[in-house]
C-alpha cells in the first residue's frame, strides 16, 4: 500500500516536472550525420592527395580495393547498428549487420598479405610506415569515436558494452577507409599486423571505456 502510494507520488512528481521534448532523430539519420563527417574528411584528403594513386593501387591489386571497400561498408553498417542498439526496444540482431563486411575486410586484407608473401616482387612495409598506420588509425579513431559517443549518449544505450564495441569498429573502419586514400603500402604482413593491432586497440579501448562513457542513464 505504501509502495503504491510512493509510486503514485513519484508519478505525480514526474508529471509536474514534465516538459515537451524533441524526439530523437531516427538512428539511420544520426548514423548518416556521423558518416557525413567521415565523407567530408575523405573529400578533403582526396583533394589534397588526389584519387590517382589510390585508383592505381586498386588496379594493381584488386584485393586492396575489396579490402578498402569492405572497410567503408563496415564503417557504415557498424555506425548504423550502434545507433539502432542505443535506442531501447530495438532488436539485438542489429549487432550482426557489420559482421559480413568486417569478415570481407579481414579476408581481403589477409589475401593481400598472402599474395605479398608468395610474390617476391611485392612491396614489404618497413618499420616507420607500419608505425604510421597505427598512429593514423588510432589518431583518427579518437575524434570519430568521440563524435559517435556524443551522438549515442543522446539516446539511451541499455547495452553499453555491445554498443561501444560497434562504435569502436565503426571508428576504426572509418579511419582505415580514410587512410586508404593516401596510404602507399601494399598489404604486406607487417602492414596487415599494424592495421589489425590498431583496429583491435580502438575496439578494445571503446569496449573498456564504453560502460562509463555511455551509461549515463
Amino acid at each position, binding site marked *: 500500500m505504501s*509502495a503504491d502510494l*510512493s*509510486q*503514485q*507520488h*513519484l*508519478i*505525480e*512528481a*514526474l*508529471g*509536474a*516536472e*514534465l*516538459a*515537451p*521534448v*524533441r*524526439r*530523437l532523430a*531516427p538512428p539511420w539519420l544520426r548514423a548518416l550525420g556521423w558518416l557525413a563527417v567521415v565523407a567530408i574528411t575523405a573529400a578533403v584528403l582526396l583533394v589534397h592527395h588526389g584519387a590517382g594513386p589510390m585508383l592505381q593501387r586498386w588496379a594493381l591489386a584488386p584485393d586492396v580495393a575489396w579490402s578498402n571497400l569492405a572497410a567503408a561498408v563496415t564503417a557504415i553498417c557498424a555506425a548504423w547498428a550502434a545507433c539502432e542498439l542505443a*535506442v*531501447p*526496444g*530495438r532488436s539485438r540482431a542489429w549487432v550482426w549487420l557489420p559482421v559480413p563486411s568486417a569478415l570481407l575486410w579481414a579476408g581481403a586484407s589477409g589475401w593481400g598479405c598472402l599474395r605479398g608473401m608468395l610474390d617476391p616482387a611485392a612491396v614489404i612495409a618497413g618499420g616507420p610506415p607500419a608505425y604510421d598506420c597505427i598512429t593514423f588509425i588510432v589518431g583518427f579513431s579518437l575524434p570519430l569515436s568521440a563524435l559517435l559517443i556524443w551522438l549515442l549518449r543522446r*539516446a*539511451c544505450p*541499455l547495452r553499453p558494452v555491445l554498443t561501444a564495441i560497434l562504435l569502436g569498429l565503426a571508428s576504426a573502419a572509418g579511419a582505415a577507409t580514410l587512410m586508404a586514400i593516401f596510404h602507399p603500402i601494399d598489404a604486406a604482413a607487417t602492414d596487415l599486423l599494424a592495421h589489425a593491432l590498431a583496429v583491435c586497440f580502438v575496439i578494445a579501448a571503446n569496449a573498456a571505456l564504453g560502460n562509463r562513457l555511455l551509461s549515463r*542513464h
Partner: protein
Amino acid sequence: MAAAQAGDRRAYERVLADSVALIRSVARRRGAPVDLLDDVVQETLLTVHRVRHTYDPARSYDAWLAAIADRRAIDTLRSHGRRSHREVHDELAFEHYAEHDDASAETERRQRAQHLHAAIAELPPRQREAVQNLGIAEQSLAEAAAHTGRNEGALKVNLHRALKTLRERLRGEP
C-alpha cells in the same frame, strides 16, 4: 506517450500508471524477488522520464518500456547481489550483543552521522538542496518551494533521486 512527449501531463501520468503492471511483470520474469519489484518500478519510471525523447510513436511502446524495465531489473538484481554478498547476518550476535549499551555505540553513531553528512555533501547541488530543506530542515513542500524557488514536483523528484543515491552510497560502505 506521444502526447506526453508533447507535454500533456494527464496523458503522461496515465501512461506511467498503466506502465507499472508491465514493469512488474518484466522484473518478475527477470527473477526479481517481490521485495525488489518496487525498486525496479521506481528506477524504471525515473529512466522513462529521462529518456522519453527516445520513444518513437511509430513503434511499440510496450517493447520500448520492456527493454528499459529489463535493464533496470538487471541493475537492481546486481546491486542487491553485491549488497547481500557484503552483509553478514548473525542472529545470535544480534540477540546477545545489543548495541544500545555498548561503549562503542556512541562512537559508531557519530561515525554514521559523519558518513551521512559527507554523503549529503557529495550529492549534486539540486539533490542536496532537496535533502537539506525537506529532510533536515523538515520544511513542507510549499515552504521548500518558496525557499528555493523551485517547483514542488522538481523538489520531490530531486528528493527521490537523492535518497536513491544516498542508499547506494551508504550501502556500499564497509
